[in-house]
């Protein structure tokens, strides 16, 4: 490529100065000394205290099924296409259908602007999403077919994977894909001896600030609520042995909190679909 030497070229990669400002004044996460102190948004530490959730089905009219979900400032949109003919014909296992997941952050969703090109983090998340959703689906009902799940994160404010799982399972229900059970997700941030359920982005990344003490980490659990089975488990960071099981338990509890909300949204969507034209909705 010819280089224009007359011009002063900007550095190849530049960083927004705002990134170097800590997301929060260092205080909030440092409250280990007074664990009874509440979190920034007023929720309690070490309590199953999830953010208020807004969930709605059927936003994307072109998709077979779709769902939108907000938890605090985290906003996730999911669309489901299919079941339709499988693209990969060479797959050895043709007895069951395939579940294809795509997970993306919108470029404007994170503090730092992203690109549309899928990064490794997004690919990981897509893989995790696929593995969390699959146990909930009756894929054997769709031989030689594939179901596509597309998740787009509109705003990233923590616990994205967990909410993506919940949102995707709602969209799958909306699409009428046969399922054994819903799949609900819940995340947790272990901070020393206490934990923060459904953490925000600031709380999630807080551990990377200079925190000397150990037992920092994030856990995400996907649960099939009525079967009581865990379909996904993701943990990172460094966790002391006993806190892993405690975190899983807390996350399961968090999933159960979500259950009625999701159920109500689904019932609402089903009613709206079934309602004869012109009939007004109650609820």
């Amino acid at each position: 490529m010819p280089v224009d030497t007359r011009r002063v070229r900007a550095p190849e990669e530049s960083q927004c100065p705002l990134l170097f400002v800590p997301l929060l004044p260092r205080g909030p996460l440092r409250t280990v000394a007074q664990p009874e102190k509440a979190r920034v948004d007023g929720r309690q530490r070490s309590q199953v205290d999830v953010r208020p959730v807004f969930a709605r089905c059927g936003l994307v009219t072109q998709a077979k099924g779709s769902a939108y979900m907000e938890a605090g400032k985290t906003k996730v949109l999911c669309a489901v296409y299919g079941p339709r003919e499988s693209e990969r014909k060479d797959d050895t296992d043709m007895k069951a259908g395939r579940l294809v997941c795509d997970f993306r952050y919108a470029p404007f969703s994170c503090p730092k602007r992203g690109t549309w090109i899928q990064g490794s983090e997004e690919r990981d998340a897509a893989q995790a999403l696929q593995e969390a959703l699959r146990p909930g689906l009756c894929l054997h009902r769709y031989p030689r077919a594939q179901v596509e799940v597309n998740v787009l994160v509109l705003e990233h404010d923590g616990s994205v994977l967990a909410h993506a799982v919940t949102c995707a399972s709602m969209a799958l229900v909306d699409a009428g894909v046969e399922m054994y059970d819903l799949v609900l997700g819940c995340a947790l941030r272990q901070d020393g001896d206490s934990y923060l359920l459904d953490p925000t982005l600031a709380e999630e990344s807080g551990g990377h600030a200079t925190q000397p003490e150990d037992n920092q980490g994030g856990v995400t659990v996907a649960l099939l609520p009525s079967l009581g089975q865990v379909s996904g488990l993701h943990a990172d960071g460094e966790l002391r042995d006993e806190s892993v099981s405690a975190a899983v338990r807390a996350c399961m509890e968090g999933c159960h909190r979500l259950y009625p909300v999701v159920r109500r949204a689904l019932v609402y969507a089903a009613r709206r679909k079934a309602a004869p034209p012109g009939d007004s909705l109650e609820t």
Partner: protein
Amino acid sequence: MATVQICEAEKVYIMHGVRDDLRIDGRACDDYRHMEVETDVVSNTDGSARVKMGDTDILVGIKAEMGRPRPLIPDEGYLEFFVDCSANATPEFEGRGGEELGSEISSTLYKMFQNRSSLDLRALCIVPREHCWVLYVDVLLLQCDGNLLDATSIAVKAALFSTRIPKVHVSEDDEGGKELEISDDPYDCMRLQVEDVPCIVTLSKIGHRHVVDATLQEAACSMASLIIAVTHKGNVTCVRKVGGGSLDPESIFEMTETGKRVGKALHAPLMKLLQEEEVLGKRRQKVGFLG
């Protein structure tokens, strides 16, 4: 992914065996296969190791190169993982066939090291904001017979143990510019503290029990497995559920328990072995691939 095809009868045979704590190769449920570890096998790397676990064979080479620290963490060096699933392991990996599995393994390795205690990354920093060591950890899959992650993590730990990074002397000239001088004495080098580097234990749920170090056949019988990265203290740095099945919460707790127990027990002999090999120094008979 390298898989084998087995029939229903074989599956039943394996599952019944696991139920009675007797696996097809005679192991108990939480036994590893025979393992061979050798460090320093490729001489033009800064550190290397080869691990054989049954028929799974993995070679890890580490090269240290100088780079710029990441802008958000200016006082640390970093690790770059690359997993090459070569066609040597299975013809399925020819061309781009192994890339998917390779990126899956490398992302697990990234996550495993994404915490403060696994490796002291600050030791890799030379001049904050300007120069640091970047360790390129290249994993080469030579043969696979299940349980790639465990073998890989052990090989990575052994290779990190054997890594020697030349010392760098920073001198400042009059105008405040920094001059780096890399020592060319092979003994004037820096070693890494690998005590806290975790090892991965993969537990595969077969029937109502779980097994460690599953072979390909056993992996084919398992619907879901749990990957746990454990340090020698028993801290957990990474947990993943993989596979298409779901797990009972109770069995997850049991599996993490086993994972921690097995993982802890894995570290001590590994470190002992590495240190013994180290003590032998030049007298060590290098086996490599000729043994």
